[in-house]
């Protein structure tokens, strides 16, 4: 009887299969099956006598093991040396008391392992068979770092170079200012500046390490081809000697939420694009009831998928931007919401408006079923794909212990996604997506945006900040004094560098400067001859790399792309740049100069002059209030890749034949370089052939 039944069943199945086969309608896109079942490796934990919490996830599929160490301390106020906490982590593998950096690098290379260190932790991966060598290195790096002075200096230099190149990067500026403003009175609000990096000393790193790198506040997560027993034995052997100690705890309040909407504007001269970053602090931790529905709500608003709302509205529909996104970050101390995009200056006003409309729609309207199910599918897919990375499994195990989550929290994650209702999405949006408490940070052209943005502020006020989030006070001291105008500023500058008479004596100038580019010395020779001849040669070891010349009428450029005639606006601009003592001749050349403001340049006040060539090319020149010398010039170029601002700083003025020349010229923006002038020769009767 039973047999017959099963035969019939087989028959039916076979028939059914055939029917399906015969009638396959290829025009129908297959639908996904039920959410997949899966198993995240289970973790086991133990604590060493010194308090180190060890989490082990066994996975013997691949003969390798990853080790992740996290020093779980409260964020500290780093104050005027902000940056030392992350440097203390970055520099862990730069030397120990028994091994140099080179020896560490070679030892890791030999076994083909990886080992990275970073703020409050490290991560590495090794083949199972090289585990002992690896653990010896890791233990040495963690327990006995020496912070060699020269490595500290090298890292500081790298950080400063990084800061310099980010100075004109609108997304970096908008995020930095947003981070500072939304985290008032909290360590998260501290930001790195040149002055804080300069103040970091080796002592800061050593002191931080000695105080906070302790086993009793740390977690070691081991994932991979190792048994629990062996992992335990290893942990005791290699990390058991790490001595425990009390670690100071910090107390701080959750940052004040804003009452009402604020607008924070950071000016960027002649910007043709604005970077918008709408942000505020959020009290949301991993594993909380709202965490998963919050993720879904944020994904619907701004995940960047083709169907997310900000993307469809601002990119697909309005064409304002290449992409518009939002994020909802969970954090043990202070989380945050951000919605951001880079848009054209003229559409900035409406783009902010559309952001607010979409944010409000999330909290006022229930999403439709189709949208909800689409985003559940997207989230399911990205969750599934993330699991392949062993670091994901390590992170899940860590989160489960640290946030005291149910043991099956991640195991049942897909089910939890599936269970979220549209009512829950609405509820969580009301809680976390709120334009009424947002700080709208905009980096762009203040002159064009200031008035338009006022209406978004609850107080009708637009706060103006500098690139490090310091309020720019338009106070009395910075108001332009009576009687000062562009002519008087230029007049004083001319006097300061030697006076009109001395300048007019100059018939020709030959100037040689050098710079270092990735370890190679470049030489720049500049020739100028009155009234308006100009030539510049860049060479490397005697080989000419680039050459520019203007003989009063024709300009040419020679470089690796061959010789090129300079034409159009470029030629018109060159005609003016080539003029000897151009500052004395602005009027006759048709250059329009206007005094705009007093702004701070490298910590001292300077007059800002807007200099516009007949072609419309605009440069901002800054003249120091006290010395009257030109200290900076800025120019923005718009290219299809976006806009770039080049900043040139002039320092170390030295007198040659009664005229002062800047001997150090620092260029930053598209390219960073420091030109050091080695000689200036005046009136050596330069030949016309040079031009």
């Amino acid at each position, binding site marked *: 009887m039973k047999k017959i039944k099963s035969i019939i069943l087989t028959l039916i199945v076979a028939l059914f299969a055939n029917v399906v086969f015969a009638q396959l309608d290829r025009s129908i896109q297959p639908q996904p*099956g039920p*959410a997949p079942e899966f198993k995240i490796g289970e973790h086991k934990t133990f604590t060493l006598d010194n308090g180190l919490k060890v989490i082990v996830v066994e996975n013997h599929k691949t003969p390798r093991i990853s080790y992740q160490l996290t020093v779980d301390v409260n964020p500290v106020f780093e104050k005027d040396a902000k940056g030392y906490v992350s440097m203390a982590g970055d520099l862990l593998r730069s030397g120990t008391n028994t091994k140099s950096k080179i020896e560490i690098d070679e030892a890791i290379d030999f076994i083909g392992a990886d080992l990275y260190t970073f703020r409050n932790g490290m991560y590495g991966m090794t083949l199972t068979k090289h585990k002992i060598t690896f653990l010896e290195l890791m233990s040495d790096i963690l327990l006995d770092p020496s912070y060699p002075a020269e490595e500290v200096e090298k890292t500081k230099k790298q950080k400063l170079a990084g800061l310099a190149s980010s100075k004109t990067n609108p997304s970096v500026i908008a995020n930095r200012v947003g981070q500072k403003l939304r985290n008032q009175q909290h360590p998260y609000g501290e930001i790195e500046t040149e002055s804080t990096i300069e103040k970091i000393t080796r002592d800061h790193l050593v002191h931080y390490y000695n105080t906070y790198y302790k086993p009793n506040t740390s977690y070691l997560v081991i994932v991979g081809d190792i048994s629990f027993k062996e992992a335990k034995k290893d942990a005791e052997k290699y990390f058991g000697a790490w001595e425990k100690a009390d670690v100071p705890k910090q107390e701080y309040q959750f940052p004040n939420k804003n009452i009402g909407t604020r607008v924070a504007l950071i000016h960027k001269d002649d910007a043709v694009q604005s970077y918008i970053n709408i942000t505020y602090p959020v009290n949301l931790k991993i594993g909380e009831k709202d965490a998963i529905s919050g993720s879904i709500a944020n994904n619907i608003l701004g995940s960047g998928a083709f169907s997310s709302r900000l993307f469809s509205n601002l990119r697909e529909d309005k064409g304002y931007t290449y992409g518009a996104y939002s994020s909802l970050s969970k954090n043990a101390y202070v989380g945050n919401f951000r919605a951001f995009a880079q848009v054209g200056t003229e559409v900035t006003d409406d783009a902010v408006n559309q952001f607010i409309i979409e944010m409000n729609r999330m909290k006022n309207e229930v999403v439709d079923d189709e949208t909800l199910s*689409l985003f559940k*599918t*997207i989230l399911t897919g990205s969750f599934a794909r993330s699991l*392949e990375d062993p670091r994901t499994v390590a992170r899940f195990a860590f989160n489960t212990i640290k946030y005291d989550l149910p043991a099956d929290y991640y195991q049942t994650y897909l089910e939890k996604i599936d269970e979220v209702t549209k009512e829950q999405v609405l509820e969580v949006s009301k809680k976390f997506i709120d334009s009424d408490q947002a700080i709208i940070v905009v980096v762009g052209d203040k002159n064009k945006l200031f008035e338009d943005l006022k209406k978004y502020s609850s107080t009708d006020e637009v706060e103006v900040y500098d690139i490090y989030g310091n309020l720019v006070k338009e106070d009395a001291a910075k108001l332009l004094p009576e009687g000062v105008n562009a002519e008087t500023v230029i007049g004083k500058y001319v006097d300061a560098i030697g006076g009109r008479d001395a300048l007019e004596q100059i018939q020709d100038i030959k100037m040689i400067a050098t710079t270092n580019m990735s370890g190679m010395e470049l030489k720049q020779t500049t020739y100028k001859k009155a009234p308006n001849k100009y030539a510049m040669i860049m060479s490397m070891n005697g080989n000419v*790399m680039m050459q520019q010349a203007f003989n009063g009428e024709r300009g040419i450029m020679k470089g690796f792309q*061959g010789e090129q005639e300079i034409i159009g606006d470029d030629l018109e601009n060159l005609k003016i740049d080539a003029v000897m003592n151009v500052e004395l001749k602005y009027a006759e050349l048709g250059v329009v100069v206007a005094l705009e403001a007093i702004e701070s340049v490298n910590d001292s006040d300077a007059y800002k002059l807007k200099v516009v060539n007949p072609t419309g090319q605009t440069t901002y020149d800054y003249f120091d209030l006290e010395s009257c010398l030109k200290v900076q010039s800025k120019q923005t170029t718009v290219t299809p890749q976006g806009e770039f601002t080049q900043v040139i700083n002039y320092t170390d003025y030295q007198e040659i034949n009664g005229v002062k020349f800047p001997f150090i010229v620092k260029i930053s923006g598209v390219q960073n370089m420091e030109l050091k002038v080695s000689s200036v020769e005046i009136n050596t009767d330069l030949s016309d052939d040079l031009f």
Partner: protein
Amino acid sequence: MKIKQLLLSFILLTFATSIFAQANKIEFEEYDLDNGLHVILHQDNSFPLVVVTITYHVGSKNEKPERTGFAHFFEHLMFEGSENIARGEYSKIVDKAGGTLNANTTWDRTFFYEVLSSNQLELGLWLESERMLHLNVDSIGVATQKKVVTEEIKQIEENQPYMSFQKEIVKRAFTVHPYQWTVLGSAEHVMAATEEDYKEFYNSFYVPNNAVLTIVGDIDFDDAKKLINKYYADMPASENEIYRPNVKEPIKHEEIRDTVYDNIQLPAIFQAYHTPKNGTKDFYAVDMLATLLSGGESSRLFKELVDDKQLAMQVASFQFPYEDEGLAFTLALPNMGVELTDLEKAIDAEIEKVQNELISEKELQKLKNQYEVNAVNDNASLESRAYNLAINYVFHKDANLINTEIDNYLAVTREDIMRVAKEYFRKDNRVVLYYLPKSQQQ
């Protein structure tokens, strides 16, 4: 007693090794459909993921000399849509399913893949079957992709410094083998081709009997097989014989030297040596030789030329993964003030050193360590497992090489490295190009 103990530990050792090998062996099942489609399935339930890949055994070497760049062009065309997938929707469908997709083309094969959550397996099969069965090879798609592809060729070969090196080397290195043109091919050929040319190419190569379907991940074999049947079993095999060039590049006995003037600021040297066929014993030894020379900062060329003598800013040495006899490259950018001839002498001196002195045991051990790590990491992700299974079948008809290839590397001896250095890294077996800035052209 002693002997017994020794024997015992020997047995234990071998036993332990085989356990090690067993535990990490990649198990798979393979079979052919009636239409010749080769299927490889590998199950790994660790993650709720599935990777669907199709490898077509067609690359630039299957092109006609007057119609180069077609295989790469088809990689692009495959995203245009099909009878049942509207133009521009192909990638969006994968996006909305929470997955990712991509493709790439070499001289010998074209590889397409989708990574999806495992409940979307059928979607992946449907998507790839649409491509194989009835791709949109129409005038709009062809026109769009002609623009995109010629732009890409220009972007890479004309605008990126040094990137014409492949084209410049292979056209000198190969006289009869179709490796003499690059995968990107010629922009003129791509533009000149007609819709008919493209249809013919599509019908010749993108057929079940020229493809390998690999599915890796959280799958049930029976379900997967049913679905594969559903979408692929009724696809017709191609009746024409598939064109595979059967030519062998003659052995070289004369060095070829030339200068290329390019849009560059710094000069550079490129050397290319003819190397043995993929999968042969010497192929693995040459590969290790290249790693010895430039794998990592403690490698020979790096230590000698970059660190110590500071002759070079950058050095690299590698073998291209061709299917047939191919090339190994050595390239270097000089430091300021260093003549290319001096730099070349220093590189050659390092090669001569390998030809004349055995490398140290420690160096060999380090190489073996690095290859072992590579083998493990290279088979760690589902996607790379799917790729390796497919490529080993396509090139060697041996998918199991995924498990055994590392043994071929570990079997390489110090003597082998010395021998292949002598045999293949001969001056009269190479092309040398000096890249100089255009400004230095007389």
